[in-house]
């Protein structure tokens, strides 16, 4: 009962936040959205809406951070992809990723096609489907009544194996890869994890970086185009 009440409160907070957003009272909308987060709950739509609110407030760094957080829940969502693209057009750093080999591009596309929470349920359904089809085949063959359902079984098997590989890759990425978003208007990156080292390049608010490793409060990051550099932990926020 208590849990049910709490759930309706969250929905209500979300509703009020959305109304404030619609009225243009973005600061107030944020308060309501953050209330849900501080209650210990999250969702892709919530992060998406917070991202939108920060975008409207012209805080592009935070908007990017929350869009990227939303992406973990709703990867492949059309509105989210479009909003991130529009936001990226407004960022100072326009990083062109190097052209990819077509297979790896396909693989990347496949990985990003569905969010993990949807994919993992598809994976479960596919497993059941493969096992049921396999059972039917075993039943008939063991009674010497020939091989049946060959095409559906092999199709389902191939899809299942592909989904399994994607799932494993996604879980691996999720567990090992960490990304961050630059939160300061302008950040200088160094070749070594120390202040006053050789300056390598400068990044600006809203740029997404991949975190490679950590040395105390210094992080080595990698850009989409392959450049690497060290920056201090308070210049960015981990997604």
């Amino acid at each position, binding site marked *: 009962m208590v849990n049910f009440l709490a759930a309706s409160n969250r929905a209500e907070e*979300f509703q009020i936040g959305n109304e404030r957003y619609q009225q243009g009272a973005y600061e107030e909308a944020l308060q309501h959205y953050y209330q849900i987060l501080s209650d210990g*709950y*999250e*969702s*892709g739509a919530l992060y*998406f809406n917070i991202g939108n609110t920060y975008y409207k407030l012209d805080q592009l760094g935070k908007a990017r951070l929350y869009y990227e957080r939303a992406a973990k829940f709703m990867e492949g969502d059309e*509105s989210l992809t479009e909003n991130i693209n529009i936001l990226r057009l407004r960022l100072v750093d326009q990083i062109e990723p190097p052209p990819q080999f077509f297979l790896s591009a396909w693989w990347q596309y496949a990985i990003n096609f569905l969010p*993990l929470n949807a994919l993992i*349920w598809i994976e479960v359904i596919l*497993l059941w489907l493969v096992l049921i089809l396999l059972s039917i085949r075993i039943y008939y063959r063991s009674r010497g009544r020939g091989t049946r359902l060959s095409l559906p079984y092999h199709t389902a098997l191939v899809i299942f194996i592909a989904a399994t590989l994607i799932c494993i890759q996604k879980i691996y990425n999720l567990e090992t890869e960490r990304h961050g978003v630059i939160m300061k208007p302008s950040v200088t990156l160094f070749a070594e994890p120390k202040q006053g080292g050789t300056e390598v390049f400068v990044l600006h608010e809203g740029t997404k970086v991949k975190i490679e490793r950590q040395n105390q409060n210094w992080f080595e990051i990698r850009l989409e185009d392959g450049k690497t550099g060290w920056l201090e932990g308070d210049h960015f926020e981990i997604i």
Partner: protein
Amino acid sequence: MADNAGPERIGKMRRVSALVIWLGIILVIPLLSDAQDVRLTATVNRNEVGLNDQFQYSVDVSGKSTSLPDVQFPDFSDFYVLSGPNTSTSIQWVNGVMTSSKTFSFFLQPRQEGRFTVAPASITISGKTISSNEILINVKKETATPAPADPQTRRSPGDEISADNLFLVARVDRISAFLRQQIIVEYKLYFRVNVRGYNIDKLPANAGFWTEDFKMPAQPIIENEVINGINYNVATLKRVALFPTQVGELTIEPMQVTLETLVQTRRQRSLFDSFFDDPFGRTVQKTISSKPLTIRVKPLPEEGRPIGFNGAVGNYRLSVSADKREVLTNEAISLKVVLSGTGNIKLVDLPIPVIPSDIEKYEPKISSDVKTDGNTITGVKSAEYILIPRIEGQYQIKPIRFSFFDPSAQKYHTLSSAAIDLNIEKRSGTIAGSTLQPGGFSRQQVKLLGQDIRFIKEFSEFRPTGQRIHLSLPIWASILSGIILFIGFVAINSYQVKLSSNELLLRSRKAGKHAAKILSAAKKQLNASDQSAFYKAISLALQVFVRDKLGLELTELSTENVRRVLEKRQINNSEIEDYLSVLQESDLRQFANMISNADDRKEIYNRARDILTRLEKWI
């Protein structure tokens, strides 16, 4: 000669008649002119006098009429009239208009100390009474200032160019204004000396103002103005309109001019001095400047400020017009947005019309015209748009709104033009000169009018923060249950297959039962007359048992074969012998036609049952 005389006389007569007509016009026109053109001015040469001083009081009547009526002079009861009225008359022609003036002057001396008012003089023309101004005279015991006396003889150059006789005044039409409200500043030179020329040395640089100069005539127009009864010549040297761009106390800086004045030479000087002088006087340069003025600039009120307000202050009119409202596709329409009015029109942005997206709009031609010769700065700013409709239909150019602040009413106004409806007809493809494919412009993609982020999500399912889906219980429970169910199925299936596919095994299991069934059938034959049926059943029971139990065929059931197979199964020899002897005896009795009684049959039956029971345990 006679022939020539005629035309000559006629010519002379013509000239005479023309002269008469001209004279008539000259004489009659002034008489026809209106009485209101008559002006009456009273002046004194000084208004602070000592008790023993005399001063001049003059009444000047000027008008377009030559026959000026008599003047009713005021009552001079507070003064002694020393002389007067002394009359002088002058007639002037300016731009074809005749002006005549008559001056009546009196020399007066006060009777006692105090402040006295000289009442206005008056004149009556065609029933109307015109009055001059009143003059205040302050009479003191002693002479306050050196007696002015006759300017022709007694003034020195220094006196003449005193501040009283020559000064520059900056005059504003308001001392408190709103931001960007027009303030008009006039720089006026007041003089009672002979000024030959002037030069503006320092133009006021007014910080915090946008300045617009008025156009001035090349030669300043000189007017008369009476200040405290003293008549001054006044020339307006410069007029500017100032538009304050800051809020607060702003200063209008002084203007400085250098004047060339002509000073009369003293007659008492020696012959040589005057010899080198200008016979009419001496030129003296004098620099004077106006006083700085302070203007208090107020911000525009917040209250009632319209949304589209972009800083226009003044009074404006907006007109929007299209030259055509019904056109064919691809035909140009000219849309004009004209803003006119008073104020800093140069700095006002014209409102931009919203054109439907199927009508192509080209960059407007913007022109502005500021008029600087009126009393205030006015102007017209216009933008002309060329519109080319590409697709037929009914379109509307929405009303254009323009907001401004009217400082005189202290209110914001919003102008709104009328909506313009356009009716675009399709140009038929057969019209000569039209190179367009029919419908060539009607196909188009949905145009992106603007780009913004997509709207927020309305609904959401929430999960506790930090939960990792791939470690969640339902996922693993469903994966594991699937696998367990599958393994279970495979196990049960293979067991079933083993049972059903191996019939021999089934037969061997059921061998005992089968044999027992046949034996019980044989038991029914114990007392039957046909003994062969009984023995046949016993034999069958024995054979079927071994066949089923050992997976053999009936044809393989020779004695040797059975013995070998049974030995292979490591069954006691005695049992094998027993089995075979029972089978042999049963076969023998079946076919040998030996007589057997019921006891014999019972014995055989019991032996067969025993051996089968024992073999059942062994195999």
